[in-house]
């Protein structure tokens, strides 16, 4: 069964969308008309430019409301966020490990490259956790190593080999100029060059990291905003059992 939906302002299917953007042209009637035409060119049926403002001699700011005729079949949409799967609690993860794996699971994590944002990886790993979700360090059946920030990919891999890690956690927060993409890619390439990609469950995370992107880049999964240790632990143990099955 399909369920065709459109943006909703205050009436079903009115298609109302708010937009704002800058154009590299002076402010004025001509700029407003350019803004309006541009919005129409995106397939909006109607557009009203409700505000414009100079930002500099050659830049101007526009606020517009458009009326979209485009729609999407909600039923056909496939959600792709790692956090959405039903997940286990900390205790359940520990039980699961005891029952199905029978040894401690080793997890190594770091914020890699030149990225110095530790808060995200700490939120996942540190004892105290985040938002009332305890971190991996508190899981009795996990053995965890948090290497902190600014860790070169080489060093992270070396360390993972040394401690015989089951899973490697890579955090990337800075995404400007796609710096995360090249850094994350290099990590996988290094593993592959060494022929050890399959020895690890590779997990990427960060506020702008989607599962889709991570998988594309060769990771097993990617965790974005609003992910917690329990999501990650669940993924690791399930995946491990799956790998052990093979």
């Amino acid at each position: 069964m399909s369920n065709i939906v459109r943006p909703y302002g205050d009436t079903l299917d009115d298609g109302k969308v708010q937009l704002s953007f800058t154009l590299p042209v002076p402010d004025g009637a001509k700029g407003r008309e350019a803004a309006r035409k541009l919005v129409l060119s995106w397939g909006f049926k109607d557009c009203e430019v409700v505000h414009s403002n100079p930002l500099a001699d050659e830049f101007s700011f526009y606020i517009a409301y458009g009326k979209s005729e485009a729609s999407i079949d909600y039923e056909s949409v496939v959600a792709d966020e790692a956090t959405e799967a039903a997940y286990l609690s900390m205790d359940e993860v520990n039980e699961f490990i005891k029952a199905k794996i029978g040894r401690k699971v080793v997890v190594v994590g770091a914020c890699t490259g030149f990225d110095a944002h530790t808060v995200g990886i700490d939120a996942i790993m540190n004892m105290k956790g985040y938002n009332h979700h305890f971190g991996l360090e508190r899981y009795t059946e996990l053995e965890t190593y948090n290497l902190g920030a600014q860790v070169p990919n080489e060093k992270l891999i070396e360390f993972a080999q040394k401690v015989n890690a089951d899973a490697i956690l890579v955090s990337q927060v800075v995404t400007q100029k796609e710096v995360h993409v090249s850094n994350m890619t290099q990590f996988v390439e290094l593993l592959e060059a060494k022929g050890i990609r399959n020895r690890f469950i590779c997990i990427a995370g960060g506020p702008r990291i989607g599962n889709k992107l991570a998988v594309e880049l060769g990771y097993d999964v990617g965790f974005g905003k609003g992910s917690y240790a329990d999501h990650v632990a669940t993924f690791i143990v399930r995946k491990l059992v799956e790998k052990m099955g093979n």
Partner: protein
Amino acid sequence: MKEKLGLSRDRIAEARELAERICAPVMDFVEAHSSVTVERATLRLAGADDANADGVPVPNLVVDRLRDRLEDGALKWYVNALLRQGGTVESLNRKIAEGLDVSSVPLGDEKAVRARADELVDRGFARIRAARERRDAMRAEWKGRNNDPLLYLIVATGNIHEDVKQAKAAAAQGADVIAVIRTTAQSLLDYVPYGATTEGFGGTYATQENFRIMRAALDGEAERQQRYILLTNYASGLCMPEIAAMGALERLDMMLNDSMYGILFRDINMYRTFVDQKFSRMINAVAGIIINTGEDNYLTTSDAYEKAHTVLASQFLNERFGFAAGLPAGLLGLGHAFELDPTMRNGFLYELAQAQMAREIFPDHPLKYMPPTKFMSGDIFRGLVMDSMFNFVSKATNQGIHLLGMLTEAIHTPFMMDRFIAVDNAKYVMNSIADFHDEVEFRKDGIIVRRARDVLEETIGFMKEIAGVSLFDSIEKGMFADVKRPKDGGKGLDGLVKKGPAYYNPLETRLKNEAGLR
């Protein structure tokens, strides 16, 4: 300025004494040491510049070769080579860039070296003085035309030419201060890249040429606006003294510069940082550059309510280290931030208390107040309102330097329109509450007054603890920002230099004199 919190003057004095006690041993250590970047900064102020074909800067080429002999200071080798080679500083720089190893030039007459060194130092100081006078003249000409507090905007495109566009637009929109955010990795580089740059991540390389390009652009815009536009960069990381030197020469007006930021947030070795910060601060003092300290960073990793006292303690320490480097209160832009959890009941009152407390304890300092960042989310509308409350507190407590919050803080480095929205927000709110500070009083023993008193008391307790174990040990124990840094860990320790008995650095001596230190 009217005091509203009734804080005990005695307790504040006690905190200052504690700061002195805590910093004294550190200063003793600093006095006995130099570092590769201190030496390079010295060379730069004496005229060393340029880079080789691989982009390695001349100061690095010189100091790298001298690595084992730095206990005497690098300058004499550079000057010696200059005398021996003849010609100008510029031609020497070129030769070094092309391969000349100054350490291989036999040392000549010491008196001649000293005389020539004095000349070079004079020239360096003359350039700094000229820049300072130019700034003073411009600020005098356009007196009263800046916003109060100064509105501070960042540009961070990674490309200096794109930055210029953004900066000019920001100034036209009403910013008083433009900070060119530095590329993500630069603080860990033990050299300062050379020339104009167009590729950076989350920011643009700090280079002397980039400074020059932006300075010229902002001066142009200032002329148009008839309002002085201040330029800010980062004298921070592994090259703090060199960047300070470059900033002094190119008339920057502010520098991010903290006595401990590199240690805590960049894992730079603590000894190295303490040595470097002193030298960089002396330069800033002489150049009349306002430093911005980094206390706000504590609150990005720790809870802003629980750890408010670490901010105040760090302000006292930054102040003390600043005084020890000759910085007057008027150049101490001590940092703090609006980072309480937005869901906290009465959060605004606590922010008000903390900001007013900073204002009353540091009355002559141009406090640098940072916007909410940690609790900003993809909800730009909520974020915009949080920024409006921040703007309110800032004006209501007479802050000096106001970093504008961006509604897109959690998403991307600022778009041009994000900055416009931020300036508009601040101007509206601040104009609308222009005299709030004089109008409003706080209830005796109310939430606000009690909060300020409690934070001060907690700070004193905290500083007593630090004084008990030494600053080095407290950092090792993770008493700041929840990070532990071993004394001999971190980056750059190998660049630390123990001054020898024959350590020669007339530039440092001159700095000390001009900065009024003994």
